[in-house]
């Protein structure tokens, strides 16, 4: 099943709790493959990853090469998405943009996941004042509109790739914490946790070996469904000039590039937008498919 390769590994890698889960996973993958939307999304994302990796090999032009003989040219065979106000090939730049979307998405979600899942596990397992403190911090961060906070952080740090990553990571972890804490609360009631606790298994072991695998499915679904937000926010901040700076071919920055030439060269801003849209549709489709496959009761 080559088409669902990345999803496949993400589920199996979280397995560790015994042989019965293999059958469950088979069923989950079968259900996932049955959803045409999720399948389409997975194929798209696989392509997206491949394009991101091999971008230098397949782009017809150098994305940074300026060509003053070919300014603002309409889409043609030589330049499928046209050229921009420096004569750069928009198609090559959009393909390169895949790299930034991929990099930002993976790094930011990775950080959010480590921080958010860690705090969620601690809050759910240790109750009492530790939980109160963590959940209060979550409440506080939920009271500030996310993009407003991210924009202020990235902008105050002066913009650029690193500030962008810091800003969106700092704002987004809270979702993971909420979800994981809720799930831990229900898992912790199970007899086998009680048994492990009373037989003196260390807390760290219980959390990592018995609780984490049982909450991993909602983490995976949430991470997939967060990807669109991260891509949109990075693009939005770059568009505002607080994220990745031009001339870097990031999708949001590409849209900003064409803003001044909208009247004479609509293609500069339009095509990167379609790239963002297609990517978001794909991740949403996978996320929805995964959610339905993992929890058929919610399927609709």
């Amino acid at each position, binding site marked *: 099943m080559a088409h669902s390769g990345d999803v496949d590994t993400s589920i199996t890698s979280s397995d560790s709790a015994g042989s019965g889960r293999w059958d469950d996973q088979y069923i989950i993958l079968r259900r996932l493959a049955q959803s045409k939307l999720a399948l389409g999304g997975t194929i798209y994302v696989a392509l997206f990853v491949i394009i991101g990796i091999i971008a230098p090999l397949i782009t017809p032009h150098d994305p940074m090469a300026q060509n003053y003989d070919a300014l603002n040219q309409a889409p043609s065979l030589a330049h499928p998405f046209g050229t921009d106000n420096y004569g750069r090939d928009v198609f090559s730049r959009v393909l390169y943009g895949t790299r930034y979307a991929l990099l930002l998405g993976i790094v930011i979600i990775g950080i959010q996941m480590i921080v958010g899942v860690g705090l969620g596990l601690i809050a759910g397992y240790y109750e009492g004042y530790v939980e109160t403190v963590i959940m209060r911090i979550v409440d506080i961060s939920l009271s500030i509109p*996310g993009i407003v906070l991210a924009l*202020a952080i990235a902008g*105050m740090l*002066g913009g650029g790739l690193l500030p962008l990553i810091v800003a969106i990571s700092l704002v987004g972890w809270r979702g993971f914490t909420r979800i994981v804490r809720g799930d831990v609360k229900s898992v912790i009631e199970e007899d086998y946790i009680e048994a492990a606790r009373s037989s003196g298994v260390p807390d760290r072991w219980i959390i990592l070996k018995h609780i984490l695998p049982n909450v991993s499915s909602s983490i995976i679904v949430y991470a997939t469904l967060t990807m669109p937000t991260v891509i949109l926010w990075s693009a*939005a901040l770059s568009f505002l000039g607080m994220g990745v700076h031009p001339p870097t071919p990031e999708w949001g920055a590409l849209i900003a590039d064409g*803003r001044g030439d909208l009247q004479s060269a609509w293609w500069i801003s339009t095509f990167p937008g379609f790239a*963002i849209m297609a990517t978001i549709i794909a991740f949403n489709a996978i996320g929805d498919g995964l959610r339905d496959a993992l929890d058929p009761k919610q399927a609709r």
Partner: protein
Amino acid sequence: MIPVMLGVTVVISSIVYAAPGNPARLALGDGASPEAVAQLEQEMGLNQPAHIRYFDWMAGVLQGDLGTSIQSGRAVSTLIIERLGPTLELALVAMALTIIIAIPLGVISAVRQYSWVDNTSMFFAIFWLSMPSFWLGLILIYLFAVRWQFFPVSGREGLIFTFTWWSFILLPAIATGTRRAGLLTRLMRSSMLEILNEDYIRTARGKGIGSKAVIYTHGMKNALIPVVTLIGLQVPLIFSGTVIIEVVFSWPGMGRLLVDAVLQRDYPVVQGTILVYSVIVMVANFGVDIAYTYLDPRIDYS
């Protein structure tokens, strides 16, 4: 609510405190003498430790004084009050458009599940959901303002609710609300589907109550409960969304004030606007709690 609000003020102050760069130097420009910079630092209280700066700022906030803008020298509260109106207008019109489109579309899609209405609206919902709002804004400007010239390109003119005002607000409101409308349509549909499968709906139908009456009196009100939650959750997102749309459409609201202030490192204005956005979110959440008790009498907060 009050401890959370206090936490918010701490977060806001620490962003500004942690940011690199010296605001006094930025305000005076590169040519300023070290003495002048030192004096301005003294006046702005920048040489105080973090907690003293925080308490000074808080003492002002509690009295309605959010400080003075470094760039314009005007009171931050005045700047925000000037800009609050346009932002509220934009957010409310976007919200209203979202609800007007999403709720009927969601209900019809559920009642005629898998019909062409359902398929078409779900197709559009996915598209709407996936569009970057600032990009949609640019496309709308290009098509409706530049090419066909139905609407003005950007800005805000005219008295509220006049024809001119509508012509200026409509495009930015659509750009702000589209993503939300996609989400809300999908949620309304699934919520309605769930309710239509409930026993009491079947009973009502079995007793011969007309299907329109069943849908609207028995179904809608119950299906609206999760939707109200989502609308409540959308309020902060709509306000967040207005920030970037205000920049795209040169809408003179708080979002543009914030973006300009961040770019110019106008710290007091940044602090003040984030604070006001947070208050709006909290008030909205409170409003959702009240709406619940009305829609579902079983929920009781006392």
